[in-house]
């Protein structure tokens, strides 16, 4: 059993493509998830008590079940309910909805962490609700939600590997196929670990830079 | 004259490049109440913490009842750190009361007071709790023994903290702004406990903004400003007019004007 790096070099184009699919799905799923999650969090906060409770149900279900089970339900159960999606759209939708549930909680916590006095001060000055959200809550929230958002992003990247189980042609699928095809199982696992690790470390680093940038806008400790 | 309880000589404390204490010389007389006053940032808390060896001084010496605290001067005249066991032994003569009480939140009042007896001094549980109970009684909190800190008011917490320090029978008690984290109506109960303690002849060093307390209970007042000890004396001398201009300014600026009229 000798490690053979030639296998990796030979399949470099496919590996790059698989990495591309993973990155694209991850970033798209996260972007849609952040948008949807923000919508959910805002609606829950300002939409009245009933709306809050009704929206809590899907959020809690999504957070209380494994991503894999959600994918299976949509991918294999979907066609029986008239929803026949290909692996990529199915993967993207699942990733979006899953991340939206978690991001909505991050934003909800962010809203809650802004001192109520700041909102009251804005109300007294006659700012409208939308103005308060845009001018007061969002800027204050940005720094609060950044670290958990970066953590969540890393978790989502790792969850995206699960999409290989429904044959989405992403990184894990691609590399394990190469591994079987070339009987280079160990090389494949090794390479997979290294690539994911590199992406995670890079994004964590980016997150720290963003955090440092953002915190310079904060004038004083509360 | 007897040996001072605490003797501070040529003490210097630096944080990085900032010098927060400069050439402090101070004798804390035994059985008396010494008060350290001064504006925020004058270094009075740092000085008190150096006396407890919670801060390590940069230069100079402190002795407690004649024994070196933390550092000693070796044969070649160099400052050298004492071994940890020796530091603990000297420090055992000192009790400390903090501004933020610092009660251990996972223990009841009784637990807080008896913990060190049980853990450090290996006193059997029942005896430790009896002794702790006696101290709680002294600060008037025997009926709060089984309450957790979060269930007590600030004043009660501070009284428990005093009881905690007293159970170890210290010879000297240090108070680091013991009432400044309290609501005004709760400071009285703590000051009363401190007054009782002073009446018993406990050696006390108090950092406080309670000028009234310093003036009435204190035997010695030291005024610090910008890291320097400007003067030390009896309250009557210190507060007598004409006052030192910095003290006058301090009394005017940091206290409401009524207080400066009082003293």
């Amino acid at each position: 059993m000798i490690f053979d790096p030639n296998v990796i070099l030979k399949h470099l184009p496919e590996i790059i493509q698989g990495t591309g699919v993973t990155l694209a799905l991850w970033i798209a799923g996260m972007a849609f998830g952040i948008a949807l999650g923000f919508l959910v969090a805002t609606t829950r906060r300002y939409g009245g008590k009933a709306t809050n409770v009704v929206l809590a149900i899907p959020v809690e279900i999504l957070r209380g079940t494994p991503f894999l089970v959600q994918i299976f339900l949509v991918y294999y159960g979907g066609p029986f309910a008239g929803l026949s999606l290909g692996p990529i759209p199915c993967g993207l939708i699942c990733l979006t909805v899953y991340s939206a549930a978690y991001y909505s909680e991050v934003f909800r916590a962010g809203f809650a962490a802004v001192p109520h006095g700041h909102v009251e001060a804005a109300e007294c000055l006659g700012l409208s609700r939308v103005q308060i959200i845009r001018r007061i809550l969002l800027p204050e929230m940005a720094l609060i939600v950044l670290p958990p958002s970066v953590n969540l992003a890393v978790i989502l990247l790792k969850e995206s590997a699960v999409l290989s189980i429904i044959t989405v042609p992403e990184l894990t699928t691609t590399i394990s196929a190469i591994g079987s095809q070339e009987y280079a199982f160990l090389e494949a696992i090794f390479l997979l670990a290294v690539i994911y690790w590199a992406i995670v470390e890079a994004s964590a680093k980016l997150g720290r830079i963003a955090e440092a940038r953002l915190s310079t806008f904060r004038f004083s400790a509360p | 004259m007897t040996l001072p309880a605490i003797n501070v000589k040529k003490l210097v404390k630096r944080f990085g490049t900032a010098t927060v204490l400069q050439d402090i010389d101070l004798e804390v007389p035994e059985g008396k109440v010494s008060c350290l006053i001064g504006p925020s940032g004058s270094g009075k808390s740092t000085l008190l913490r150096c006396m407890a060896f919670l801060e390590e001084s940069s230069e100079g010496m402190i002795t407690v009842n004649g024994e070196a605290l933390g550092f000693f001067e070796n044969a070649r005249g160099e400052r050298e750190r004492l071994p940890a066991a020796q530091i603990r032994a000297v420090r055992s003569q000192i009790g400390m009361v903090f501004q933020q009480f610092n009660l251990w939140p996972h223990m009841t009042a009784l637990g807080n007071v008896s913990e060190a007896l049980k853990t450090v001094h290996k006193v059997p549980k029942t005896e430790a709790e009896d002794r702790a109970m006696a101290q709680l009684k002294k600060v008037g909190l025997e009926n709060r023994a089984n309450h957790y800190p979060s269930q007590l008011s600030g004043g009660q917490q501070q009284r428990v903290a005093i009881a905690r320090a007293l159970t170890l029978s210290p010879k000297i008690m240090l108070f680091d702004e013991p009432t400044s984290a309290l609501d005004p109506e709760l400071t009285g109960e703590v000051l009363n406990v401190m007054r009782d303690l002073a009446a018993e002849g406990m050696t006390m060093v108090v950092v406080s903004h309670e000028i009234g307390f310093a003036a009435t209970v204190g035997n010695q007042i030291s005024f610090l400003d910008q890291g320097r000890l400007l003067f030390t004396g009896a309250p009557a001398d210190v507060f007598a007019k004409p006052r030192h201009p910095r003290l006058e300014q301090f009394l005017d600026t940091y206290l409401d004007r009524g207080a400066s009229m009082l003293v």
Partner: protein
Amino acid sequence: MKKTTFLKAALGAAMLFSASLSAHAEDVLAKVKAAGTLKVGTETAFAPFDYIDAGEHAGLNVDLFAEIGKELGVKIEWVALPWEGVLPGLEAGKFDVVAGPATITKARLERYRFTVPIAEATVAILKKAGAPISKPEDIAGKAVGVGKATAQLAQLTEFSATLPTKVDIREYPAFNDAYADMAAGRIVAVANSLPNIAFVAKQRNGAFEVVLPPFGKKTYFGFIGTKDADHASLVDAIDAALLKMKADGRMAKLQEKWFGQKFDTPDAVKDPAF
């Protein structure tokens, strides 16, 4: 250029360390007999060889290995993995032999040692009932499912290359997933070995149909062992048990039970057609 060399060296060095520790010689048959259990790796989504029937592991493999166990005087311990993990598991020593079964191919013979063939493995098409496929060539341009890392995939890829328009090949972790997707309508056909698809067509009566003739070359299924000397005695013993079962008719009976027919299989495949 220098960069590649460095990359190779670095990766190689990292793995060499682990490789150097793995060499240890021990006769596997003796070990199995001493332990009293034969560990068999497989995937449980390959009906009728290995599948889950109402929560129970069932199939030809289960019956065959029960007999092999009797012959060797050991109990059988099953380890079920996704197919992609089965051969790596064998190489990592997670089990002594792989049931599967796997198609005996040239490429695999280079790396593994196969037992006596247990069934025919020639690949054919299973289509969704009513799909416009009447002969194998009709799958040109259509979406066809197949298992990942299988010989069936390799044969389908080869067949696809001979067609005027290529087949839209979809790879699945297990053939079961491919059948499920065909039922869901995402693909119109699945390429798998005849015994498998005949069984599935019968199970899902009417929903799926077998398209004859098979497009693949004539191939056979066997169980898989490793080629190293330690495992030789074990695979020999399994071969002997299988040959004994062929001779006394037990094999034919089990084939009848699971396929509704018996296969005329050779005693060994030295030079596979594929």
